[in-house]
């Protein structure tokens, strides 16, 4: 390591602090500052280079990692508390008065997502049941966000989603669905095409 006197070290530290302040504000230092001494320019170039190296380093770290088995994913998923998202309880009628059946709101949202995903080129996002789902026969509105594949015709796609969701809920629940509102919030592309090629 190059030997520097404590005095040089302090001066150099001051310079780095000054340059860092510029860089961290996203500004370039004034030219006359950079031209005042060669070490100013050298230090600025080095700091800028470190920054651009830092931007890429995590991606490079990931690429350098050997392939791993799947246990880390399983380890995460088994430690998650799924019950937390059950939501409200929706009564289901039954011929026996002794039976007390219900469906969770989370399960109904699952039905809605599955119905939406079955429509080609779409994904359901956030999904909300508005209305008093706990009281049989109460009017319920379904509001969903959706993503459509780039280039799909949105009005037609939204209509297909509405139809699929309505049919599924009619079939699987006793909810009195008065409206299914679809908001297209996103457009997606095929993400894994590059992976498949590599």
């Amino acid at each position, binding site marked *: 390591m*190059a030997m520097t006197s404590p005095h040089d070290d302090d001066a150099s530290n001051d310079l780095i602090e000054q340059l860092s302040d510029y860089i961290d504000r996203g500004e370039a230092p004034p030219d006359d500052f950079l031209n005042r001494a060669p070490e100013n320019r050298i230090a600025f170039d080095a700091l800028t280079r*470190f920054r651009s190296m830092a931007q890429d380093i995590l991606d490079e770290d*990931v690429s350098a990692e050997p392939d791993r088995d799947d246990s880390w994913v399983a380890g995460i*998923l088994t430690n998650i508390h799924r019950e937390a998202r059950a939501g409200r309880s929706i009564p289901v009628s039954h011929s026996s008065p002794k039976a007390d059946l219900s469906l969770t709101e989370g399960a109904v949202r699952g039905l809605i997502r599955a119905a939406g995903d079955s429509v080609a080129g779409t994904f359901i996002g956030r999904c909300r049941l508005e209305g008093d789902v706990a009281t049989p026969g109460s009017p319920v509105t379904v509001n969903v966000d959706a993503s459509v594949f780039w280039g799909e015709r949105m009005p037609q796609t939204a209509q297909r989603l509405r139809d699929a969701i309505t049919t599924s809920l009619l079939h699987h629940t006793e909810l009195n669905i008065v409206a299914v509102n679809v908001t297209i919030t996103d457009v997606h592309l095929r993400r894994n095409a590059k992976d498949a090629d590599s």
Partner: protein
Amino acid sequence: MSITGSDERSPLGDATDAILAARAADGDLRAFEVLVRRHGPLMRAYATRILGSNSDSDDVVQETFITAWERLPELQDPAATKAWLMRITSRKAIDRIRARKQDQPLGEWDAPAPESESPHQQAEAASQRERLTRALGTLSEAQRQCWTLREIGGHSYAEIAEELDLPPSTVRGLLARARQKLMQEMEEWR
């Protein structure tokens, strides 16, 4: 080669982060799994950079995702899921360092790092990434953390100060020293 983890096994693999995060907030575990596969490897790399080794990075990633699952319903902007996950990752990594050091405040173990390696050894390092990694290895832990949070994580001085529980002026000083040390180290390898 994709820069993020592969998530092609799920039919949801083409969905955007915003859609996946909204679904996961609604309780869709399959959507959450796609987020785990997509961002887990990058989060692990980030945790490793902050921790200085990968010995605890799997635990940090696991804790991060468990916290993320619980807090997803509070996420205001699902499109910013990746940045949000990275922030939780850095926090969990710092918690772990703190636990390692027990009750010692972070700033006080700005201990000297190992001596620089000889130029001969350094010349063997092939890539820029390896050279930078070696240079980072010569920093003190506090310097490396400040540098990592600033340059890789993109945090402001104020955020780093809060995360590390240090005054902003100390963060500024640690960063300047980290940068100065990196300059010296990288200089010697030219």
